[in-house]
């Protein structure tokens, strides 16, 4: 719950806590003074005895506002329950019904959403009789369409997930799919949004009471108090101001909290680097594009997924980083980009474009990374915002980092899209990401990286989701870019890497185990590199033999064995390997380098 430490959600939390406390204790503490009729103090303005004045029976208004907290919250709560009870099932229907029924349900939701909510609420309230019950029903019915739409959208995103398709192929019933697969997986965002709806209900109910459609005397909620106070607003503004402020604060509290929680659920934290150790820093060279010394990434609890990584990249060079899943490739890249997720801690020296990163202020860091470093991630759909046009998103890079006027930035975006060979770039720039195919999205992201003048492009698995032809296109694009910028290409496929790179860095269990040129790959000396190559089928692999595999699994980032981390899986391991850790010397970290004959 780190998000709660930033000011807005924290304010929300405090407000909500205060309001809830009031609802609990209010009637007990001030119930008496709120009900005490005083003929001698009718319709007074503020005074030391009555800070917000009194009403037409001489009752203290401040006490009444405090006491009304409970009823106001209770009604909002009931209205939300009604809204959920109607909206949730309605929203799930399109995912559950067979196609024709689903279309009908979706149509109903569309129609309901289009209908003005307040009108719906007022109509229901009037029809079902004046009073709290009518208001709650009305408000509930008015929020139901919004919730139904939300549920529908969320459910649709899950309904297309592979595990739902798999269940359908297995013949699992639609209802069961909704209950077992869809609802549990959308529960979290739904709850967050219900918090927001609650704030809305609170406001709406106050509105209804204020129109005289809600709570009737002798009961009172904030809306009722506001209604009563407004008739004398020119005489004693505080009588109306008090309930208005209460409503406002409570609604704002729930909204801030809901939004803060929603953000926390979706956030990818950016964390400042930990202090670099002095020695490692001095070693980091400043002439190349990138020089990394003794880089480690640790997570609380003892996981150290990246251990003491050294990496140098010369201008215009293309370096491949390969290794199994979990070997620390992505975290190494994230550490260079300053994007290691909280609560990861980064240590070691990083020198980017001749600048020692530990010596820069946060602002300078952001600027340096924003202009000289471009990162292309594995999943293009998460990098591009689905709600914004592609051209605008590209342009934003230049308007924020290079302070370019928007028009010029848009023109540059079109130019960059053209450079990555997207046909009809002017038209494409105006479209949303989902209209792009996987390969095009990937290219759009490379184009985004080219908006500045990056000295280094880090591409993390940019091609795994793509077929060979698109894959080759993307790789050629990166290579073209490398005439100006250096590239680090991260992949688990050693064949892909060898197709494009000058040099290959092989990682295992968070460490670099071998470093060699592409030409040397066939003569690799490290047993792990050799095993990786042997396990990669090519067009000459013998089809009558089982494929070579690497038995066992890599160690977890929590374990740091004394000896070589690869020893349990290594065919060449000796007892020395289990006790002595091989150091990276002369491009290899192995006690028994293999030779190629």
């Amino acid at each position, binding site marked *: 719950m780190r998000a709660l430490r930033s000011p807005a959600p924290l304010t929300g939390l405090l407000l909500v806590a205060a309001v809830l406390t009031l609802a609990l204790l209010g009637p007990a503490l001030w119930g008496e003074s709120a009900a005490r009729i005083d003929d001698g103090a009718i319709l007074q303005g503020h005074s030391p005895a009555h800070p917000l004045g009194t009403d037409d029976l001489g009752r203290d208004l401040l006490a009444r506002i405090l006491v009304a907290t409970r009823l106001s919250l209770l009604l909002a709560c009931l209205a939300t329950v009604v809204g959920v009870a109607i909206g949730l099932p309605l929203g799930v229907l399109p995912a559950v019904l067979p196609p024709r029924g689903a279309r009908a349900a979706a149509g109903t939701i569309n129609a309901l959403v289009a209908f003005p909510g307040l009108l719906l609420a007022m109509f229901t309230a009037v029809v079902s009789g004046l009073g709290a019950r009518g208001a709650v029903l009305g408000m509930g019915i008015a929020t139901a369409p919004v919730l139904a739409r939300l549920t529908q959208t969320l459910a649709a995103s899950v309904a297309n*997930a*592979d*595990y739902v*398709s*798999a*269940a359908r*192929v*297995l*013949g*699992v019933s639609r209802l069961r799919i909704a209950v*077992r*697969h869809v609802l*549990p*997986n959308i529960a979290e965002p739904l709850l967050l949004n219900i918090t927001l709806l609650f704030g809305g209900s609170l406001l709406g109910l106050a509105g209804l009471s204020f129109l005289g459609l809600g709570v009737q005397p002798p009961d009172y909620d904030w809306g009722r108090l506001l209604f009563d106070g407004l008739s004398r607003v020119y005489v004693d503004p505080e009588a109306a101001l008090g309930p208005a402020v209460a409503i406002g604060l409570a609604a704002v509290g729930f909204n801030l909290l809901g939004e803060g929680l929603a953000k926390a659920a979706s956030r990818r934290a950016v964390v400042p680097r930990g202090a670099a150790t002095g020695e490692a820093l001095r070693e980091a060279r400043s002439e190349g594009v990138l020089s990394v010394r003794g880089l480690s990434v640790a997570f609380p609890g003892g996981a150290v997924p990246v251990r003491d990584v050294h990496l140098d990249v010369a201008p215009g060079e293309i370096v491949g980083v390969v290794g*199994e*899943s*979990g070997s620390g490739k992505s975290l190494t890249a994230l550490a260079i980009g300053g994007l290691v997720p909280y609560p990861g801690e980064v240590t070691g020296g990083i020198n980017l474009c001749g600048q020692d990163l530990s010596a820069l202020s946060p602002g300078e860091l952001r600027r340096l990374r924003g202009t000289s470093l471009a990162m292309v991630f594995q999943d293009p759909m998460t990098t591009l915002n689905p709600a914004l046009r592609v051209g605008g998103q590209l342009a934003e890079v230049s308007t924020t980092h290079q302070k370019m006027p928007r028009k010029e930035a848009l023109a540059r975006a079109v130019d960059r899209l053209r450079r990555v060979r997207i046909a009809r770039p002017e038209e494409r720039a105006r479209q949303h990401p989902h209209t792009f*195919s*996987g*390969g095009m999205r990937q290219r759009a992201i490379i184009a985004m990286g080219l908006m500045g003048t990056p000295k280094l492009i880090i591409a993390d698995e940019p091609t*795994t*989701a*793509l*077929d*060979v*032809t*698109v*894959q*080759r296109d993307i790789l*050629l694009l990166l*290579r073209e870019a490398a*005439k100006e910028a250096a590239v680090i290409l991260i992949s*688990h*496929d*050693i*064949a*892909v890497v*060898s*197709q*494009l790179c000058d040099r290959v860095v092989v990682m295992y269990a968070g460490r670099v185990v071998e470093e060699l040129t*592409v*030409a040397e*790959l*066939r003569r690799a000396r490290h047993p792990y590199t050799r*095993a*990786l*190559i042997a*396990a*990669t*089928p*090519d*067009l000459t*692999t013998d*089809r009558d033999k*089982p*494929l*070579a*595999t*690497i038995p066992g*699994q890599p160690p977890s980032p929590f374990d740091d064995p004394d000896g070589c981390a690869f020893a349990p899986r290594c065919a060449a391991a000796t007892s020395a390997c289990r006790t002595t850790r091989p150091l990276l010397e002369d491009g290899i970290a192995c006690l028994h380098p293999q030779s190629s004959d």
Partner: protein
Amino acid sequence: MPASAIERLTVRYGTHVAVDDVSLAIPERSIVGLVGESGSGKSTLAKALVGLVPHTGTVTGADRVQMVFQDPYASLDPRMTVGASVAEGLKLPRAARAAEVARLLTLVNLDPALAGSYPRQLSGGQRQRVALARALGARPSLLVADEITSALDVSVQGAVLNLIRSLRRELGLSVLFISHNLAVVRYVADVIAVMREGRLVEVGPAEQITSRPHAPYTRALLDAVPQVGRTATARR
């Protein structure tokens, strides 16, 4: 006699024809590889076979088709245990389920004790094997494998490919194996079908397709296959 035959299968999305009049036989106990560029309609064809998208044309001899998906991280419900996922498709009395789940997990070389764990506790390769076990539980006559090794490490990919071949041997399974990686398809498949823009451009024995292709498009695909130590296209 072919175990399954696809005849004149067509899938339309609005006005776009994603799969265009495809006919393909999948002989019993054989693995047919399907390759082609992205957007060529491979996955759409697979989905049509298992009834996930509406289509015209006929599919015969494939009354029990099951499918395994590309992304092992997305194809298992994160909130269900491995055992519950595998048991989902079993048409068995409750009491017999645990034993069947254990049998299926053993079949795909997983420790049956994993039945109680959640997908997040498994590696990609293990998850993909769970997905395979789940599909095998429905005793399919045809298994559609859509890019099942693309998201896996080579060290694990080998184990999954070996598993597919041994399942074919032991269970007499027919497989439609879809992949963009020609080297992988060449290794597992007996027959390779090449697809482009919704149509089949070439079908033939795996060795022949990869050594003496007829269609220029197949040749282009072969040229794009990345290989260790070979820089495919003109370097600087």
